[in-house]
């Protein structure tokens, strides 16, 4: 710890130098913000985030391709996604003499904009069903503001075939059933000509709309009906023996037990084509981006530093070799080779479960391999000139080892160059990773580049919330480092000072 404190204190001049400039101040402010968000994201990120992101069922209840909720302020008609978490809700319980346990949940839904919800879904995920439960009837009705009652679905789930396994995890999604809806429409609107085909396509407008029919001959039409809807969900368990407490507890402990009125807008940043929450993808993109950028930068800087110091300090054959190696590397076109390697990696790791990580590492490896040459050249020339300084000779005459001289006398003078190299290579790696993703060589990790890549292949022109934010975040992150580089440039190249 004291070592870190000493390094921090030793770098105070650099900090002062950077902070004395406007670009440095902005950069540090941005950097602090980015790092803070990254730490927050890394701390709150679910450990199975990568799995969740690529698991379509998880996102089933979200509207697909939806703009963020705040887009309502810019004229978009926005219907918020309404999620009722039934685990925490208190149902009305009734037990009849035949042993049925009936739980009834009543939810109120206020439709205040002229729009229809996109879907209705009941999600049950990993609910433990006690062994003595034979079956459950799941029944959903909605009472419209005008008092008409529509039945949405009515399902019977039989548990007896699972009974051998004792208690088991119940996972299922329930969606509206068209015949049930059509039947209750017929019951409620007796003299209306309701087109069953239209119900099949636009059933939500029949549930959440006002049904009108100007004259008896025409077919019924729907218009928006704002107001208060009452959604009622009944779970009718057929149980052998007493199980009320047990059932309530298993409901509380289910992974998910939600009724969702799917809206047209979602969250802070909207959703993509699978209904995935882009705010989540963008937030967790922060630590991944920093990891990609800083990881690559640290490795290539470390390599360049080592090669440069060895090359400059020891000279001779090893120097010649390193310099020629850098020459050759520098002449090879990076991007084409990188694309080739990435494409090859995509095929080579095709079957591997860790393919995303392996591919990303391959890409970063190539970036590191090609990224250290520039720094090595600078470090070499600096080392050469410091090596011939008298105080280095003095240290040698004292009996200081080469290692000591490299660490104590040469390394400290290279700090600005190391910092500059870190700062220049960080955005480079982030930009390249994103570029490759956009090109179609997509590793599958939810990086900003990955989100952009899917926006390009799966999205449409109108989906601004999907295209702009990842690009802007990439740009802001790299801007941070560019500004930092601008401030450092005057330290590294004193002639640029005014």
């Amino acid at each position, binding site marked *: 710890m004291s070592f870190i404190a000493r390094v921090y204190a030793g770098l105070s001049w650099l900090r002062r130098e950077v902070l004395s400039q406007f670009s440095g101040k902005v950069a540090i402010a941005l950097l602090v913000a980015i790092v803070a968000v990254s730490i927050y994201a890394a701390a709150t990120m679910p450990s199975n985030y990568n799995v969740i992101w690529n698991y379509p069922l998880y996102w089933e209840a979200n509207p697909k391709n939806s703009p963020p909720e705040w887009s309502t302020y810019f004229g978009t008609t926005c219907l918020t996604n309404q999620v009722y978490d039934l685990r925490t809700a208190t149902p009305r319980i009734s037990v009849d003499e035949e042993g049925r346990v009936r739980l009834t949940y009543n939810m109120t839904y206020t439709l205040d904009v002229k729009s229809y919800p996109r879907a209705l879904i009941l999600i049950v995920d990993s609910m433990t069903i006690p062994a003595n439960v034979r079956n459950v009837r799941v029944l959903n009705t909605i009472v419209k503001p005008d008092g008409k009652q529509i039945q949405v679905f009515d399902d019977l789930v039989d548990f007896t075939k699972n009974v051998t396994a004792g208690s088991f995890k119940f996972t299922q999604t329930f969606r509206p059933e068209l015949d049930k809806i059509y039947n209750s429409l017929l019951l409620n609107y007796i003299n209306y000509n309701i087109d069953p085909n239209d119900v099949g396509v636009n059933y939500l407008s029949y549930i959440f709309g006002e049904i009108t029919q100007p004259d008896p001959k025409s077919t019924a039409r729907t218009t928006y009906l704002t107001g208060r809807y009452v959604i009622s969900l009944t779970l009718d368990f057929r149980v052998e023996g007493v199980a009320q407490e047990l059932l309530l507890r298993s409901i509380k402990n289910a992974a998910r037990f939600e009724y969702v009125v799917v809206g047209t807008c979602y969250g802070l940043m909207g959703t993509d084509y699978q209904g995935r929450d882009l705010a989540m993808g963008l937030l967790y993109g922060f630590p991944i981006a920093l990891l990609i950028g800083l990881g690559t930068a640290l490795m290539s800087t470390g390599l360049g530093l080592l090669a440069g110091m060895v090359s400059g300090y020891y000279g001779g054959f090893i120097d010649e070799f390193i310099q020629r190696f850098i*020459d050759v590397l520098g*002449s*090879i076109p990076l991007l084409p080779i990188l694309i080739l390697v990435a494409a090859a990696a995509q095929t080579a790791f095709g079957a591997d479960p860790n393919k995303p990580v392996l591919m990303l590492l391959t890409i970063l490896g190539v970036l590191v391999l090609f990224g250290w040459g520039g720094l090595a050249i600078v470090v070499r020339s600096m080392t050469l000139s410091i090596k011939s300084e008298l105080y280095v000779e003095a240290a040698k005459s004292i009996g200081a080892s080469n290692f000591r001289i490299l660490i104590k006398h040469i390394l400290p003078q290279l700090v600005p160059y190391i910092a500059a190299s870190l700062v220049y290579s960080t955005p480079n790696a982030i930009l390249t990773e994103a570029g490759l993703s956009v090109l179609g060589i997509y590793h599958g990790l939810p990086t900003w580049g990955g989100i952009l890549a899917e926006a390009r292949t799966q999205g449409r022109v109108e989906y601004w919330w999907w295209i702009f934010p990842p690009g802007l975040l990439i740009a802001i992150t790299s801007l941070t480092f560019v500004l930092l580089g601008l401030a450092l440039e005057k330290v590294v190249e004193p002639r640029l000072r005014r």
Partner: protein
Amino acid sequence: MGVGTTLARRAVFLAAALVIAVFLTGVILGASGYIDKVLNAIVLEEVRAYRQGLSKLYNLTAAERDRLVAEYEKTLRDYYQLDKPWIYRLVPTVLSTLTLDLGYVQSGGVAEVAGYQLPVRVSTVVLTCLPRTIFMITVAEAITIVIALLVAPFIVYRIGSLIDRVVVAYAAVMNAFPLWWIALVMLFTLGYRWGIAPTRLRAVTASINALFSGNLLALGEVFYYAWLPILTIVVVSLGPWIYSVRAMLIRVVKEDYVTAAVARGLPEKYVLRRYIMRPAASPIVTNVILGLAGTIGGYIITESVFDWPGMGTLYYSAIVNADAPTILALTYIFTLVYVVARFILEVLYIVLDPRVRL
């Protein structure tokens, strides 16, 4: 060491780099199993299609059909030389590429980018795609350079002024934005949303073909398609360009002899030409030549975003289709252009710097 020795050494190392780049590409293609996998998949797909075609002919017995399919598969495997280890397949290709015998395009998809059908020589495909890249990317880069060289000297006398700050901020922002993202945004807003610019840029091929068959009026059409990509590239790369030229000029401006020249009362223009631009010429020329040389390979991602059928798209298509001869040829050409540019620079340094004389 004499200047001749230095140049000879450079030439040897640059040539070595060229050979290594092509060999490296060959090894990546082969050793990773990439070529084999992709080619096997292609063969499988073609055999499946062939079998489906045969199944429509009712007068064939099942045995006969199997025989025909097996024969077809063998022809294909022979064509792609899939039964030989990759070393035997790729080394001859690498060697012939190095001797500028670029061979034939292997995949129909690659030929299609250039608007041909198999069989077609790689050189033909390259010569078709190169002008397209030049018309878009090289032209854009050249425009950027000209503007930067005009603007930077103007600012260099006004370091710290408002205009200087604006330019630096602009450069920083544009340095941070990925070119391809701006391209996406430009295409979406100007192209799709507002309909100002054409969006199906692949259609430029017809105009370029017309241009090359002697219809000079088609040049207008070419730029009708190219203006949006060109504008995008200029907007994005202008900032960094001005900034780097500015930095090179500042280094010279700080020299005592410039201060002395100004103190002697020499006119600003004269000082700029004789005392600033001349010494700064060699780094600027380096950037210009390497920048222009770099455009020949096309901006792969940007071309992909605009769906512009140039060198970058050709290369990407070759990779997707595992077309070894084309990949090797393009790597060779990209490296060759860069290496030749570097060598030209070595010679130019000697010409530009009066301290070095042959």
